[in-house]
């Protein structure tokens, strides 16, 4: 998110936003009403898919329009604790130009945070996404099991920018317009991405059953920040290994209780994990009891469509004037879990 302090000016004992940034506000972006007003209905399993379109606020076609910066995902509907119940939904995000934001549909509770009447625990995304005027993204919601969900409210949360001045919609503060321009350029090859196994991991009802799944990093480097999982049966253990280099991420096996979170409170990796193009993550799971299990595993992070290079200076190197480790990249992760006082 853009640091706003530079746009605040002190006047006597009060602090005033500079004229060009008065219209910057927290915002909930609701879907377009393609299928009538909310709540939407997600059809029963096997009965179809709900397609939802989120359109950027269409206002003032001035320079960069009125972008919406997506920072959180949140939904309501159903019961939050039923593992295979009303929230058993897969989601896929696509942009209007065909760009995918996930390698396969992911389980909604590894992607969206939960809200109820009080709207708590949204899911954070790890790279802001700017939805510019007239742009839109599509979300596809498909029930994996059970009947239709009739009270479904999927929202995007973030910041709405109106970088304009006055009613004539002239260009606003030059500095903030410049920042937005940089974010637009950045989003061309750096954008949020959710990585999941090619297919959900399915264990038959056999104690000790072992399954192996894999995730392939196909086109460009990927940076994972968090890990989350939903399973119909929590009695399993998991090991993650990168098979091209043989790099293992653990000296044993983790379980859902001690090693993996969900979309609202994902397991925040102590250090983000860079996977180069061509890397293959092998996920080995073992069922610990005689009940069947379906496991949905998702990594939250961002795609970095740029070459891998050796940097001349490695430690404490600022990346650019709009994005550094210090002002955004790690802080948003660590502050959320309380690691930074």
């Amino acid at each position, binding site marked *: 998110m853009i640091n706003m302090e530079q746009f605040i000016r002190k006047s006597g004992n009060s602090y005033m936003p500079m004229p060009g940034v008065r219209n910057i506000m927290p915002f909930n972006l609701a879907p377009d009403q393609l299928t009538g007003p909310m709540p939407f209905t997600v059809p029963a399993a096997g009965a179809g898919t709900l397609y939802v379109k989120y359109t950027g606020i269409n206002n003032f076609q001035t320079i960069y329009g009125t972008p919406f910066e997506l920072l959180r995902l949140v939904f309501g509907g159903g019961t939050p604790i039923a593992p295979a119940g009303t929230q058993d939904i897969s989601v896929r995000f696509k942009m209007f130009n065909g760009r995918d934001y996930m390698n396969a549909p992911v389980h909604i509770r590894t992607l969206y945070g939960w809200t109820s009447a009080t709207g708590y625990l949204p899911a954070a995304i790890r790279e802001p996404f700017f939805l510019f005027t007239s742009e839109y993204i599509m979300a596809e919601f498909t029930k994996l099991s059970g009947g239709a969900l009739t009270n479904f409210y999927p929202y995007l949360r973030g910041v709405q920018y109106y970088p304009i001045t006055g009613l004539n919609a002239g260009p606003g503060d030059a500095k903030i317009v410049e920042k937005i*321009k*940089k974010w*637009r*350029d*950045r989003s*061309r*090859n750096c954008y949020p991405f959710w990585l999941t196994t090619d297919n959900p991991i399915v264990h038959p009802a056999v104690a000790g059953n072992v399954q192996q799944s894999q995730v392939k990093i196909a086109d460009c*480097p990927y*940076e994972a920040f968090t890990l989350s999982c939903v399973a119909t049966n929590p009695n399993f*253990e998991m090991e993650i290994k990168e098979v091209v280099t043989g*790099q293992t*991420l*653990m*000296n*044993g*096996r*983790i*379980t*859902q*209780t*001690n*090693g*993996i*979170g*969900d979309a609202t*409170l*994902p*397991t925040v*990796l*102590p*250090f*983000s*994990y*860079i996977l*180069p193009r061509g890397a293959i993550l092998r996920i080995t799971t073992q069922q610990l009891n005689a009940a069947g299990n379906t496991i949905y595993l998702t990594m939250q992070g961002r795609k*970095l*469509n*740029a*070459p*891998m*290079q*050796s*940097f001349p*200076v*490695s*430690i*404490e*190197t*600022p*990346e*650019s004037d*709009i*994005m550094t*480790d210090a002002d955004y*990249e790690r802080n948003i992760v*660590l502050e959320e*879990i*309380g*690691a930074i*006082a």
Partner: protein
Amino acid sequence: MSIKTATLKCSPSGLVTAVNNLRLKQIPYWLMTDSPNNRVLVPAFGQNGPISMSVSRDGPAEVVNFSVENDGAAQVLFEIDDGSNPLALMNAPVHIGTILGTGIQPYILPNAINVDELRKLRVTLTDLSGVDNNIRIVGQCYRPMVAVPDPKMVKARVRKSNKQYLMGLYFYTTCGGPISLTPAAPSAEVSIDIDNMRHFKLMQMSRVADGSFNIDILNGQTGESLLDAPSGQHYEIPDNLIWGDAHYPFKFQRGRLFQRDQKIVVRVTDTSGLPSNKIYLTFAGQFITSNMWEA
């Protein structure tokens, strides 16, 4: 907390132009008790350990938080084993419910633990539940691999490794075990003796108890309380106001320093009315070697 390395290089226009190769050698890592003991069976009211949690020669690891899956209550003792005298990270075993969280809400350590192929973490577990207890401990780590060819990174790692002998993670709990309150003896005053060679910077507090209680915390030497009421008074306040648990420990805005050889005194009074209220307190923070101050 971790050695800081830039991930991206960006052009003035904002476009990401390169990803740092070096970052391929810095990975997250889950450190568990060594195989085949990922799951440690602790017999009812019995003990198992010490069990090693060790990393390979591929590189050191910095443990930043702990989580656990367990069948029942237990006490845990962490030590650093470098092949000679084990260095305990606590004055006595503490309740796992005070320092081991879960994958969703891990316990964030106030100071990371550095381990490498020569220095391993080891753990001893004691059951409190009275039934066989399966316990799986995980330490989530940052791990810089040794293949990193960057001299600055190597220097930074050596510096961190050396620093841990001067300052590092430490836990204190009440001397003499948990506090037991009963209707016949509803109040108690117990002390925590600070090591005579090392200062202690108190940063986090967490507790597990059978029921509610009121508590006051004092410096044993000066009589000064951590709880400041009007007119310089102090008195016991409900535990849930200033004590958290392993998921959300109470964190001080700034660390509170107790000099070496001092005592922390706690006064507690039962408010639960239970036949027995057993209280496990854990004070987490950093030890600071006193020689560092005298030098």
